[in-house]
């Protein structure tokens, strides 16, 4: 495993913001969502767009965004591998700023996931592996693909639909405390189990929302970070990995191998921390099985213990390890590539400015997939 401890704590997030509102924004094109996020994040740290010399984004072409923003950055990261792309942008920004490739890196996300305003087209060709070996069998978006491995997890470990439902219930309890969350009414395990079946074993309330919105981050070196108005959020550890794209080709249906093999161990090693040092986590929850896979594959619990752990409400308000305190993709917002919102909530918790603020958060772990467990990234952030 590479030793990247020398890069820990070298780069900080100094600006972070989302679009003014998230949810339904038919008034905003995709690029407009990027721009609003960017201007908000720059205002958050007292910089202007002309201070930016590095640009990272996913979903849209970085060139299209540079043109729209009217800047000519000298560093570009167009890594676009789904919802974890923004975690990977942060990861790359650490190395880039340390190497001098850029001084001020802006990472943006904007997605008109619900209203579909100014969205690019395109679907996989019929002669691609996905076009030949998955599309003919009626896969119809993430609910019918991301869900494919779960039945084997249930068989191997005894994970139940009730345990999957508990993830949704715990997450909703956080959303109840967040005025920006789209879904805030309390729900019970039965509500989840009785909600409409989407693709067994996933009911409607096991599935994330579909919304519009955006978010952006501004990163600078540790030296510069001290001069900004808000407490810097340091990148302590990072990891990234990429595996399959077609869910049928996932190496092991019961384990998030990219996380257990690469992103978790690398992030913890770089940060020089163990699991007990993590105060808070954001686990991208496109569906309620994802936090179970994340908790197990990152090594917070043993394989198979994730379902019972969530059923004990350990992640809920008052639980021993707060997870998805913004309400997650399940109840807060989910534009499509949600990873940016997971980072935003970790930053808010580390700054002490979250709506559902947890006391004494000094470290936060953000973990996200891109595609169907296809790409993966983990960040460990800290405020000390």
């Amino acid at each position, binding site marked *: 495993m590479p030793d990247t401890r020398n890069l820990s704590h070298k780069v900080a997030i100094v600006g972070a913001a989302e679009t003014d509102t998230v949810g339904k924004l038919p008034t905003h094109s995709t690029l407009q969502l990027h721009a609003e996020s960017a201007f908000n994040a720059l205002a958050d740290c007292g910089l202007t767009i002309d201070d930016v010399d590095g640009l990272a984004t996913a979903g849209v072409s970085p060139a299209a965004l540079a043109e729209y923003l009217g800047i000519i950055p000298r560093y570009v990261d167009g890594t676009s591998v789904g919802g974890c792309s923004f975690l990977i942008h942060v990861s790359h920004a650490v190395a880039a700023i340390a190497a001098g490739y850029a001084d001020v890196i802006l990472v943006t996300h904007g997605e008109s996931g619900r209203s579909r305003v100014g969205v690019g087209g395109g679907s996989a060709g019929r002669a691609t592996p996905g076009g030949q070996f998955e599309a003919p069998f009626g896969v119809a978006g993430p609910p*019918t693909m991301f869900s494919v491995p779960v039945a084997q997890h249930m068989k191997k470990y005894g994970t139940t639909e009730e345990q999957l439902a508990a993830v949704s219930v715990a997450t909703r309890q956080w959303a109840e405390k967040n005025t920006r969350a789209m879904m805030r009414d309390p729900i019970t395990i039965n509500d989840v189990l009785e909600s409409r079946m989407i*693709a067994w074993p*996933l009911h409607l309330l096991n599935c994330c929302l579909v919304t519009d919105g955006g978010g952006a981050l501004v990163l600078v070196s540790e030296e510069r970070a001290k001069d900004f108005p808000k407490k810097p959020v340091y990148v302590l550890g990072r990891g990234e990995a990429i595996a399959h794209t077609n869910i049928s080709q996932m190496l092991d249906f019961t384990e998030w191998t990219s996380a257990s093999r690469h992103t978790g161990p690398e992030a913890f090693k770089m940060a020089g921390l163990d699991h007990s040092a993590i105060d808070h986590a954001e686990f991208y929850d496109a569906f309620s099985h994802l936090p179970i896979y994340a908790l197990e594959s990152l090594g917070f619990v043993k394989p198979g213990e994730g379902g019972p752990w969530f059923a004990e409400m350990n992640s809920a308000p008052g639980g021993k390890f707060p997870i998805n305190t913004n309400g997650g993709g399940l109840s807060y917002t989910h534009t499509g590539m949600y990873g940016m919102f997971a980072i935003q909530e970790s930053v808010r918790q580390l700054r002490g400015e979250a709506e559902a603020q947890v006391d004494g958060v000094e470290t936060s772990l953000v973990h996200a997939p891109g595609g169907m467990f296809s790409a993966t990234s983990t960040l460990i952030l800290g405020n000390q």
Partner: protein
Amino acid sequence: MTTPQRPLPEASPETQEYWDGMKRHELRIQKCNDCGKGYFYPRPFCPAEGCHSQNVEWFTASGKGTLLSYVIPHRGHPAFETPYVIAVIELAEGGKMMTNLDLGGAEATPDNLPVNAPMEIGYEDVSEEITLPIWHLA
């Protein structure tokens, strides 16, 4: 308004043999002559970690496997009548293949579909050019 059609595949150079086999109702896949494992989908080298040999050959597989996992869409592709099953079969010779299931008139419920159950391949001629696999409980 037209009903959306089931998406049909188009062979690529490295998969033509598989699709030609499907047409004859034969499961033609590849195996690695160095590590000995079969694999799917077709490509001109072994995808197994730590092997990646290019010494591979086509063979006719047994058409047997196990039900590795599945979902039962109740909201799915508009060309499909719900509920239907999207399954992944672990092939007896190695490799994982997505497929629909022929339930023989049984309801698409988890009770009727035990994970890890032995499975057998069947064939569905969906057009003049294309035959797709459709697996059933053995």
